[in-house]
């Protein structure tokens, strides 16, 4: 099956879901979500069966859709991340419906008791299509369009709980800052076009490598783009929006933002910075910018996470911290192999980042699944609510323990390999000592704030009146078990993820 059929299937799925909500009478709208999960699972399997065109000449389509031999594996890998995240987010959304409906449907006004729920399931599917396209976008135009398709969906989803002040506040913040960053992105793209005279990434790379390139103008374009993408991935000093938006948004959407949106940001960042790394003159300066960004993000994310008392906010800072580790991989310049052989996957930034994102997906979504289940029992996501979780629900406590251990980077979990490969790449490529020191400080601080969650669950007794068992629906439970197994399996056999890239 041609590779672009996948995006088409996902878009059609979204349309079908909208139609189903409008024209089919459904007792329980969760069925729409289950249908989507089913179709997306098929799409996920189809990823292993796609075919690529023999030649990209002739059809203008391939000017917008990457079919280069070298990047096919990565495109599919990132598409896989998008699909998998969407599947789990949909399951999470079904679990979250109780909280969501409190702030959307108003049955006393005659609305359907589940009104608004099906769109909540549908929008992530559209975002997923955008993310999948972005994984293959090789042209400034297609990058921009796919990125906006995702971002605009998120504007709606973040503010979805319209009768909840926090959600609205998050929506407004995200909208204003997101629009601003889009402005920077477009402006940066126009400058890049102006400098190189092409929108095609391969062409841009060629042009930038020429001696005649206007370095100042190219760097200006880069600066504008980095502001915009720094916002998307949550790199300091553009991370301001993350804690508030993450805290306010509905939990499944927070999970979606923190995994898929971050992955998307890094794909674009990798593709565009790849153009700049091609030229000796530029690559040094661009590398230095990434080093500074990485150090700031590592320190800010990890140190600001220390005093957090709200679990969702803590995970927001943790997502900044992980962006720091990903930037650290990006900032370690790619080793050039002399005799034209391809360097081993783990000696390249893109290989390490892909692995890290895969591991990050597993552990972050696990944490958010637990958070969704616990949130059903209480009014907010404060850490106090997690006291005594080990007694209330040993299963959830163990899941969260695994997730936190992996996020902190305890060996024999997926998260450790992620950090290990990042540090290995940095040390191997002679990254500056400050960067490595910032990484060590960040990882050490991580031990504290992730273990704080573990301590709260296991050491403390549950609060009075909030000490009953916590029900978890079957699909969520199955996903959690699978994620736990995957975290340990990848923590011992990293090839489980690395093998997928090829």
């Amino acid at each position, binding site marked *: 099956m041609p590779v672009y059929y996948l995006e088409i299937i996902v878009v059609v799925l979204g349309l079908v879901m909208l139609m189903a909500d409008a024209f089919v009478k459904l007792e329980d709208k969760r069925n729409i979500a289950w249908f989507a999960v089913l179709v997306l699972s098929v799409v996920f399997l189809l990823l292993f069966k796609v075919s690529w065109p023999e030649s990209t000449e002739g059809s203008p389509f391939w000017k917008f859709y990457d079919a280069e031999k070298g990047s096919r594996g990565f495109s599919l890998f990132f598409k896989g991340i998008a699909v998998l995240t969407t599947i789990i987010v949909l399951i999470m959304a079904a679990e979250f419906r109780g909280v969501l409906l409190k702030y959307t449907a108003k049955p006393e006004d005659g609305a359907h008791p589940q009104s608004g729920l099906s769109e909540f399931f549908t929008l992530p599917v559209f975002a997923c299509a955008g993310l999948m396209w972005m994984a293959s976008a090789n042209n400034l135009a297609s990058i921009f369009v796919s990125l906006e398709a995702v971002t605009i969906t998120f504007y709606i989803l973040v503010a979805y709980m319209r009768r909840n002040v926090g959600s609205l506040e998050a929506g407004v913040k995200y909208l204003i800052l997101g629009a601003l960053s889009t402005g920077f992105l477009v402006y940066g793209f126009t400058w890049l076009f102006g400098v190189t005279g092409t929108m095609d990434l391969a062409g841009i790379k060629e042009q930038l490598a020429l001696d005649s390139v206007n370095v100042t103008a190219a760097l200006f374009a880069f600066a504008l783009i980095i502001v915009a993408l720094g916002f998307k991935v949550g790199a300091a000093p553009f991370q301001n929006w993350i804690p508030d938006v993450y805290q306010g948004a509905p939990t499944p959407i927070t999970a979606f933002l923190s995994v898929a949106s971050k992955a998307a940001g890094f794909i674009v960042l990798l593709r565009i910075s790849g153009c700049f790394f091609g030229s000796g003159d530029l690559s040094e300066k661009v590398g230095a910018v990434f080093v500074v960004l990485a150090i700031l993000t590592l320190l800010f994310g990890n140190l600001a996470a220390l005093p957090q008392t709200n679990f969702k906010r803590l995970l927001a800072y943790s997502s900044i911290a992980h962006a720091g580790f990903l930037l650290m991989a990006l900032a370690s310049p790619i080793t050039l192999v002399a005799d034209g052989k391809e360097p081993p996957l783990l000696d390249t930034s893109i290989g390490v980042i892909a692995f890290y994102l895969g591991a990050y997906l597993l552990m972050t979504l696990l944490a958010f699944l637990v958070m969704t289940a616990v949130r059903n029992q209480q009014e907010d996501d404060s850490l106090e609510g997690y006291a005594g979780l080990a007694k209330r629900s040993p299963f959830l406590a163990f899941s969260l323990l695994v997730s936190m251990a992996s996020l902190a980077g305890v060996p024999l979990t997926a998260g450790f390999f992620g950090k290990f490969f990042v540090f290995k790449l940095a040390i191997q490529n002679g990254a500056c000592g400050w960067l490595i020191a910032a990484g060590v400080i960040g990882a050490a601080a991580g031990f*504290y704030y992730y273990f704080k969650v573990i301590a709260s669950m*296991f050491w403390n007794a549950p609060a009075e009146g909030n000490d009953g068992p916590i029900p978890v629906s079957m699909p969520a439970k199955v996903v959690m078990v699978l994620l736990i197994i995957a975290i340990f399996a990848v923590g011992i056999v990293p090839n489980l993820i690395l093998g997928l890239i090829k």
Partner: protein
Amino acid sequence: MPSSLEILVFLPILAALAIGFGAPARFTAIGAAIINLGIGLVAAKSYNVNIEGGAVFQLESSRVLLESPKLALAFGVDGMSLILMLLTVIVTLAAVWASPAESKIKGSPKLYYISSLLIAAGALGAFLSTDLFFLYAFHELALIPTFLMIGMYGHGKNRKRTAWTITIYLGVGSLILLAGLIALFVNIGQNDTFSIAEMIVRAQDSETMIPEATQSWIYLLLLVGFGVLVSLFPFHSWAPDAYADAPTPISMLHAGVLKKFGLYGLIRIAGPMLPAGAEKWMNLVLVLLLGNIIILGLVTIAQKRLDRMIGMSSVMHMGYVFLGVVAGGTIGISGAVLLMFAHGVSIALLFALAGSLRERFGSLEFDKLGGGLGKLVPKLGLLFGFAAFASIGLPGFANFAAEVMIFFGAFQPMEANAPLSFLQWAAIISLWGVVISAVYMLRAFRKIFKGPLTTTETPKDMSWNERVPALLLIVSLMLVGFYPEILLKYLRPALESLTLIGS
């Protein structure tokens, strides 16, 4: 088909899983520990001690997980790891046996036994791995169980603070260690393999050797990293509190087994791969180890609580092992490895007996315990006396054989009529540590068990569940004490082969 060493490492993990899914905790844990002891003894029996040159590791198994760089879940033993493996299985059995019965554990007895098993599995994995990555990774398996156990079941008001201290301290220490290990990996040859044996070959090949200046800073990173884990002065402050506040089996496993990992790493990794670095920082290590022996020895005398005193003494004795490592040579390293075994067993014994005392009298402060308890609990008193003598290093116990070898090792390179080197001066000063140990151990024994009886409680003497683990440990100590060859024979071929040369 898994190899015997793979079973050894993964059996405790499987047992922990089984307990998690509802198997009877104490029964499963003790069962797994007994089977592991059996496998360990069989493995020791099948180890060929007469090997000349040839393979460094025996009973090897390897499962390649990653091609580039080569990363494998590989296990194997040489003399040193064999002895530490035996130490681990012996102490593990004693520790789970000495754990309180399920009905006496407040909270979840499952978690209690699972934690002990995971710590044991981590230690076994670390000692048996022949792959640098897993050597590091397995050691960290103990991090979370220790954190949970001290916070949940620990003693004293400050247990939560203690749990944080040990976790952060060891976490930071292992991150520094990780940075050092990655630097080591990157600088050796083509940075394409984590196999320890191959890395050593490259490190000692004059063509692929690491330049001296690089060796120096990497060794320093490793020294700090491993040093934190072994509680080398001045990175020791996490240890006494942690051991004092932790539940008994955790103290036994941590002080007895896990702490040896840092020393093991220095002898296995840092010594052979960074010989120039080791030489450069030798005097620094000597100063620090004197800090362990003399300064911390004096601090130990001043302790007012038995558990803290034992904890401090365990930190202090690490100084001797370091002395053996620095002295190097066949005798020095043999002494160091032997002392790791002896100290591990004797400190586990002391913590087990201290746990029994705490259970009976509710406190371990010397003032509150009063004196004359030997009349109330004669068996406990007798066993404690044995443990104290072993810890001081009296002849007949393994500790004596080991310490003597270390001191001999320090003097071995001396030529007739040559002035004493710093190493030898350090050895002479360290000898006073034996006197210091005698002072605090005998004083503690006298204060607690001799003299007039002050307490009004009438507890029972040791039950069989307490006697069995204690006897197991004492018998091992005396066996090795009277006949050290039983372990030393394993070390000889290992020392003559490449793994240990250059330390």
